[in-house]
């Protein structure tokens, strides 16, 4: 970034012909695209700070209540969690394909890539919903219905799987774990939902022939956002699901 000089050059200072989708306050498409991209990266930085608060709380409480975190983490469905990780990584791949298709003006490729990303995104949310339902059934949702009894007196199959009973006061701390679990995955899911809504709009426009004229900033920057949401999950998955799992 050659920022010690101004971005607009003297040549741009003179008003000249520009594409219809260039906004009037920009002197060139190059400036517009770079600006929009910069803005998206900066926005993603704010998102890192946003999730950062939750990660800080997680780090502190995991340090204080490690046995509770281990036991609570083992109640998460590792199959569904891994599936979700695969789903999201694949969706990032299909999204990257979509960006490439837009750049190379492949209309069908773009549409199919976006459809695939959308389906995978919805799939992620579906699996998540199933996980949340399971948590509800097991009384792991923090609040009045929360119960740590299953940690104090583990079931037969839990004991066979290697779980040990933990003392009631430490078991009570699993509520802290689940609070963070729901806050972190809930925030993440909210960002997924926002992304899916935007993706749907983009898909409709692509279906109708959009993004084939070189003005693909929206697709590229949405791609950045989608990859970011994926990366957040890549951090959440090991921190929440994989605490001291040996098998």
């Amino acid at each position, binding site marked *: 970034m050659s920022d010690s000089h*101004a971005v607009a050059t003297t040549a741009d200072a003179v008003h000249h012909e520009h594409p219809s989708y260039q906004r009037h*306050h920009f002197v060139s498409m190059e400036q517009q695209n770079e600006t929009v991209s910069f803005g998206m990266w900066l926005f993603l930085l704010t998102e890192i700070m*946003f999730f950062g608060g939750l990660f800080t709380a997680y780090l502190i409480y995991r340090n204080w209540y490690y046995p509770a975190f281990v036991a609570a983490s083992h109640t998460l469905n590792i199959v569904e969690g891994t599936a979700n990780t695969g789903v999201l990584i694949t969706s990032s791949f299909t999204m990257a394909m979509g960006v490439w298709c837009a750049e190379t003006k492949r209309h069908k490729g773009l549409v199919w890539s976006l459809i695939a990303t959308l389906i995978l995104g919805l799939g992620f949310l579906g699996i998540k919903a199933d996980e949340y339902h399971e948590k509800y059934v097991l009384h792991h949702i923090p609040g009045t219905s929360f119960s740590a009894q299953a940690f104090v007196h583990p079931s037969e199959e839990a004991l066979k799987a290697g779980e040990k009973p933990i003392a009631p006061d430490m078991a009570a701390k699993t509520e802290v774990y689940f*609070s963070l679990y729901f806050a972190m995955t809930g925030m993440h899911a909210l960002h997924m939902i926002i992304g899916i809504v935007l993706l749907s709009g983009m898909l409709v426009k692509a279906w109708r022939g959009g993004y084939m004229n070189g003005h693909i900033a929206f697709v590229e920057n949405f791609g950045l956002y989608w990859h970011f949401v994926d990366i957040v999950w890549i951090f959440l998955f090991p921190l929440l699901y994989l605490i001291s799992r040996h098998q």
Partner: protein
Amino acid sequence: MSTIVSLPDQATARIPKRNYITNENGILSWLLTGDHKRIAMLYLISITFFFFIGGALAGLIRLELLTPQSDLMAADTYNKVFTMHGVVMIFLFLVPSVPATLGNFLIPIMIGAKDLAFPKINLLSWYLYLAGGAMTLTAMITGGVDTGWTFTTPMSTHFSNTNVITTGLAIFIAGFSSIFTGLNFIVTIHRMRAPGMTWFKLPLFCWAHYAASILMVLGTPVLAITLVLVVLERTIGIGVFDPTKGGDPILFQHLFWFYSHPAVYIMILPGMGVISEVISTFARKRVFGYTAVAFSSVAIAVFGFFVWAHHMFIMGVSNYAVLVFSLLTMLVAVPSAIKIFNWAFTLYKGSITFETPMLYAFGFMGLFTIGGLTGVFLGSSGTDIHLTETYFIVAHFHFVMVGGMLMAFLSGVHFWWPKMTGRMYPEKISQLAAVVTFIGFNFTFFPQFLLGMLGMPRRYAAYPPEFQVLNVFSTAGASILGVGYLLPMIYLIWSLKYGEVAGNNPWQATGLEWQIQSPPLTENFTTIPVVTQDVYDYEWLERQKEHEVTHVG
């Protein structure tokens, strides 16, 4: 007194027919505008509205404190009044004040651009601000909040019976307004400078806003997530801050102050940017030590992220943590001192006049110096023990925020009023208002330093009788201060119709905004300027006057 004001011949001068105000008509053209200047004006009206609400609440506080007993209103009501005063003044007035009005209006013009990078996000920012403000008002009207603006847990999560959730969500929304404004400024300054406008030709106003924007963008999200956690704790009892469930209320303090300390620099840095412009113009001189002042702004922003726990010295954090934070607090105080001296030396061998913006700037320099130095009293951990949580703190932050920031805001509003409206404000009455404000301010807040030294706690509706004399002084000062703030409301509105026509450059200032018409065109420039002159280049200005063009556009 001599003046540098240079107005066109009032008999023939007219406001230019085509400008950003007359460009389109109709309420929708304002409510759906992308023009940074119109958005700035919308913000100006909104924050003035909230300022007067916050001010009315302040009046109620001072009235209650006239007597030692809690006799004007119920204790709960008083608690709500000071909470709302803090929330409204900080989040709905101080944080957006200079950036959202003057910053929005001027930054594109100062760098030679036609608008901010993201005009629609700019408009969204205003609507988010309004939504946050409306929710806050709703919370106020439907019962108020009484947790203090600091939302200390477990008071806010388990013990308060008031509208904590509504207010928390309101600030959450208003926070996004701040984030988007900062994002817009950073991207704009990086990517949209005109040819020849290098970083070190940027006016210091832009540097200050750049630094404040970094803070807005990186700090506000942490407040957002903290408020979310408070709301979740209050609604479903997740336990993250509840010691009986294994949570830690001190965690809330760390998360809250991680934003709220940078927030104070978000509030003051743009004001410092105004002061740089005003002092330069009214001394007819380049700011002394331009590079030092520019880097000091960035240094304040960076260091500002590392001092938050100085709000927690007595809360049981480890002594060694206190050592680190106290040291860093001393370091963050230094760049502000550097700026004050640089501004003072800008006056050296200058050619000084004392129009209203300059009077406010002088007021800023004195009052911010006092406020900043008393911050050092608090940054030193041993004395902080005695002074914290007393009226000393209240006095300290009012000196920097009201004596500093608000004076800078008024200085800027008066300075750029002719540019934004095309009309001059009436000079004599405005100088009077500045002096009245300065006197009223000192009467109001200086006694509070003494009250704090004596140990009077903050947020008290009733107090031991021996504190009454100083409190009466303070309330008396507040009534004078109120007059000082009401006067500009009146004469500035008056000037919209009856003020003298200003012309392009009534102050004979440098800066790209003064080389275009007043009020500016919607597109600011008909052609993007190519910048060859230096910043604060008064010699270039002299040469320009020799080939003066009388109208633009």
